[in-house]
């Protein structure tokens, strides 16, 4: 089954505006991160140096998946995210100050500086992410189980990349979730690459929503990185899950404007590819739609300003936060 594309649900203007401002926030967050990440890494790039060391996977261009889905979630729903987590975290409402402080390796961070960019945990809004491809899918399934066991109508969403859909965890978990009729949604963000490997060299079929058939569940495909279409597909999936009608796989065609990680020489893709993608910037498209819906320039400016301010404050907070004590490293292995 595939969600009929003609189906015309209208998206409430408030939700459109929310999506827009979240997308702006995400974009601005990632843009700032590009800058901050490069601090202390010149003239010689050294991944372990600077304000923010370690790997850095940014989601610039991939905002629609996050906002289209999270528009339907409350803080009691669960999201698991992979190594490229900022857009999901922001859309899910993770505490941006603590998140940024974590990425800066500070004591005030979500994980007191122990986790870092790939390991952000905010139990207040039930958000987690991790650095192992596909590993978050079963975690979301477990949250979905817990939701059921506790008699709630909460749902759980696992965001993954298209590369992750070829990992064993994808198959095992979707079979389990289908079997147990869990309120789980797997969102596959197809940004065309798993690091350097193009989708056609990793995936034996065109899109992963087709794999829903292997589990007897529903699949939906969202093309053109369209936040509004993502909103609609997500609405159906979330409603189905809350209603006890089981899991859904949504695949969204999205764009990775940057390298796999910061510092990626990107020799595996055409120099023209990214400029082409940038021309289809989903933020600009949604802005046009908003304007067409009667939102005026001033409103939009205000939204953008507010979004950026929140981000600026988060970076500010992170930068001014203290580092942990060295021997804090020995704490938190076990709770007592």
């Amino acid at each position, binding site marked *: 089954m595939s969600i009929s594309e003609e189906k015309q649900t209208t998206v409430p203007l408030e939700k459109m505006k929310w999506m827009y401002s979240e997308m702006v926030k995400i974009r601005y967050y990632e843009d700032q991160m590009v800058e901050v990440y490069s601090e202390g890494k010149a003239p010689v790039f050294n991944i372990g140096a600077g304000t923010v060391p370690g790997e850095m996977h940014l989601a610039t261009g991939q905002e629609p998946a996050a906002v289209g889905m999270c528009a339907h979630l409350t803080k009691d729903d*669960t999201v*698991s995210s992979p190594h490229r987590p900022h857009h999901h975290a922001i859309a899910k409402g993770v505490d941006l100050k603590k998140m940024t402080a974590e990425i800066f390796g500070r004591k005030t*961070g*979500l*994980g*007191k*500086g*122990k*986790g870092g960019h790939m*390991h952000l*945990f*905010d*139990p207040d809004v*039930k958000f*987690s992410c*991790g650095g*192992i491809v596909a*590993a978050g*899918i*079963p*975690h*979301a*399934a*477990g*949250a*979905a*189980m*817990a*939701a059921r*066991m*506790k008699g709630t109508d909460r749902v*759980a969403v696992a965001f993954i990349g298209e590369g992750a859909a070829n990992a*064993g*965890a994808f198959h*095992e*978990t979707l*079979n*389990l979730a289908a*079997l*147990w009729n869990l309120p789980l949604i797997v969102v596959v963000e197809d940004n065309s690459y798993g690091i350097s490997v193009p989708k056609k060299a990793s995936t034996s079929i065109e899109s992963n929503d087709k794999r829903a058939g292997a589990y007897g569940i529903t699949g939906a495909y969202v093309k053109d990185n369209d936040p509004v279409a993502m909103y609609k597909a997500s609405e159906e999936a979330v409603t189905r899950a809350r209603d006890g009608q089981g899991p859904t796989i949504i695949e969204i065609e999205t764009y990775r404007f940057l390298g796999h990680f910061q510092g990626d020489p990107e020799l595996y893709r055409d120099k023209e590819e990214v400029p082409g993608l940038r021309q289809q910037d989903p933020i600009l498209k949604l802005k046009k739609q908003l304007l067409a819906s009667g939102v005026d320039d001033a409103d939009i400016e205000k939204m953008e300003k507010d979004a950026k301010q929140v981000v600026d404050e988060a970076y500010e907070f992170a930068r001014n936060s203290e580092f942990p004590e060295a021997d804090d490293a020995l*704490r*938190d*292995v*076990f*709770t*007592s």
Partner: protein
Amino acid sequence: MKTAKKRMLSGNKAMAEAISQEMERDSNVFVLGEDIGKYGGIFGSTQGLIETYGPERVLDTPISETAFIGAAIGAAAEGMRPVAELMFVDFFGVCMDQIYNHMAKIPYMSGGNVKLPMVLMTAVGGGYNDAAQHSQTLYATFAHLPGMKVVAPSTPYDLKGMMTSAIRDDNPVVFMFHKSLQGLGWMDQLDEAVGNVPEEAYTVPLDKAAVVREGKDVTIVGIQMMTHYAVQAAEKLADEGIEAEVIDLRSLAPIDKDTILTSLKKTGRLLVVDEDYLSYGMTAEIAAIAAEGALYDLEAPVRRLAVPDVPLPYSSVLEDFVIPGKEKIYQEVKSLLEEG
């Protein structure tokens, strides 16, 4: 008030009783794994549970260890207290990522903000010719990696008490039970697999070794079957006037150094016996603890007995040769006492 009369239970019934009592006590506790429902667990650790608590809290899973152990993690993060069974420890390789990269690390990576109160129980051990992929203990494989408590009880009493502690613990606990000590009807009937087990719930700490036999001449450290063989060897040695102190390690991580060092102060000699592989194993860790903390107490070089870095062979003659037993322990102690 319980009567003083001994209540004898097999290892697996003791475990199942602990799980059942905790399920009764806390509705967040649930069990999942392969064949843990109607079958009651291949090694009987979940017998009777589905009858009492139903299929909603006792879930038979597909053969998808990554999915169901990962789901247990996700559920634990939401406040549930799952007990997941990995049927044989030998299968860890299909799901180790969930175990060691997520279950064991999320509490730390989250700065203590996410707790994972869960138990991963799994069957270990050989000696019944199940060959290379179904006979391992892999004690050190788990104990080497930080973030999980790893225990391996040797008696029905400890199986119950440590399972109760494990379920109540707010940290991930890997709970290894030895197939031969479950008291299964289809295995060799060992006296050690049955023991006195109080009916009421009780806890046994997850971080303490036990001196199961006192002695002054030599310290033998073992765990599970090796502890029992060590006691048997000690009895034979006692007939010759040699008094071996036998320590049941019980907990691989955290490891109880004090009990070991205290014993070495007294005996000055150490034999470590392990059903796991020799190199980089439990025998190494305990020998290292001695070399660091009891060097001046040692009157002779440390001895190690373990599976000699070969996969577990199938044929009885071969398997008997590689898994340490009572006789080898006895011989090793004799030779150790001649040194120094």
